[in-house]
């Protein structure tokens, strides 16, 4: 498990709490992690916490979290909760899903 937190916030907006479910070292998973990190660093730098969960390590989590398609990103906060699936290569859609207006 790999988690990264940036406690500092220099904006008034709520912190982004993200959880990314991936599966092992598959191509899609690697891409999703890379793409997401890039987007986060670019748009919500220092205002997010990202938890990356490898479902292979903890299989029971799949049912608990209603996982079907992978990779999947859950935006837990700010509400509403949103789910994003895919390798996060479609940046506008990722931003839309996260509720970030493009600058």
């Amino acid at each position: 498990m790999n988690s990264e937190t940036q406690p500092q916030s220099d904006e008034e907006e709520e912190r982004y709490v993200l959880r990314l479910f991936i599966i092992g070292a598959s191509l899609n998973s690697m891409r999703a992690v890379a793409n997401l990190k890039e987007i986060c660093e670019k748009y919500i730098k220092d205002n997010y916490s990202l938890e990356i969960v490898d479902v292979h390590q903890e299989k029971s989590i799949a049912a608990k979290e209603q996982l079907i398609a992978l990779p999947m990103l859950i935006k837990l906060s700010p509400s509403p909760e949103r789910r994003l699936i895919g390798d996060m290569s479609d940046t506008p859609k990722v931003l839309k899903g996260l509720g970030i207006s493009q600058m």
Partner: protein
Amino acid sequence: MSIEPSKSQFNTLPKTLTGIQGLDEITQGGLPEARPTLICGAAGSGKTLFSMEFLVHGAVMYHEPGVFIAFEEKTDELSINVASLGFDLQQMQADKLIKLDHVRIERSEIEETGEYNLDGLFIRLGYAIDSIGAKRVVLDTIESLFSGLTNEAILRAELRRLFEWLKEKKVTTIITGEKGDGMLTRQGLEEYVSDCVIMLDHRVENKISTRILRIVKYRGSVHGTNEYPFLIDEEGISVLPVTSLLLNHEVTSERLSSGIPELDRMLGGEGFFRTSSILVSGTAGTGKTSIAGSFVNEACLDGKRAIYFAFEESPHQIVRNMRSIKIDLQTHIDKGLLIFSASRPTLRGLEMHLLSITRLIERFKPAVIVLDPISNLITVGSASEVKNLLIRLIDFLQAYQITVMFTSLALGDKRAEQTDESVSSLVDAWLLLRDIESNGERNRCLYVMKSRGMKHSNKVREFLITDKGLRLVEVFVGPDGVLTGSARETQQLLEKTDVALRDQAITRTDREIERKRTLLEAKIASMKEEFESIKEELNKTYIADKLKQSILDENKKELTQKRDKSI
């Protein structure tokens, strides 16, 4: 069950028993083992229940735990829904026999941001299978994925992978799919599941619904291709396996009495063959039910079990009416030898009737059953459907070695006669009851129209329903034709008078002759006397003459001697 799935000499395709009544017979052993089977059908056709039964029976009867992945219903909803069939899913989950998982997928909550796959589902499924050692898996309407996820290309590739993976996992899988336009399923799942496809349908004809099951495809196996009606009731699904394609029932030459000695005599002296089917048809009020009652009564008196299916009268009515002709059915009911099953034909469709009949038979195991009357069934189906039903029923009964008596009402109207005609070729014996109206009265007549395999009377008998029971009497056939009822009685009386008169005449003549004889004999005696006296008279003269002659001769001799001496 007597209908055993036939065993192929080459053990080709291993199968998994479903435990669903009747289905294992049609498929000759169940669904293909370790392969996916597609169950498709419209909404409400029973797909979920079908797959749930597959799992529950597997867990309970065959010790094969199962995983149920529900894409539509929530797990607790599912538990409640199947609880009405007596399955306690909560307990079974606790016992690790069944695992339920509800897969919820909401398009509005999901944003697709690029390439993905269904590994999440694979992992869930794999985890569920491994955690209870499942042998059976149900994916209830996996097509829901298509409404939750938009990338069809990915979905299709992933489904293909999923089915392959399930095969590798060696689990027998049921996938359900909603019926689509011109296709078996909306998303064409049949493309991926190539081993076995079963279609469920729900039809309403004449306001009566019938559920139908059909095996569209079963690779590598012989299977019935017909539409099989099935039933969902408090015991779950039962498919009607009641069509044996072969006519290879064992036959017996044992006989069963009809309860009417004269009728037995008409049937070669001993009655009907056991395991045969008998049709009693006739117009209203000719005594069909009485004959049926008598038949049942006789069987019960013999210690046999019987079921009386009444489609017209209530059991109490029948028992009461039978009592009036000295047939006591109540004692048989009390002894547990006889049960009644009364229902209006319009209560359910024909298939349901057949099913409830066969089910009751399987439970009660009677030797004799009566269906009274089958002509009423025509109100819920066409003549050909009724015939079809009866064929299957007769097949079923023969497999169980049960003798059946049908009664059929002939109204003189075309439809009912058609029933008669269509059914008559199926039955082994056909008794026909007729009204004969003459001289201001109606009388019942009975004759044996046919009786396969035995010598039977060709005579019309008058059928009497008396308070001492049923009787058959010979009708009077005279110069004026067949006489029945009081005309027959009158004729019989007339004949009796005739006989008496004739008898008297004969005795008078006899006496006359006797008298004449005595007279003549007296005469003869007196003439004899007369003759004797004449004879004596004649003899007297004759002897005198002889005497005279001999004396003369004597004298002559003496004279001659005297003369000689004197010489």
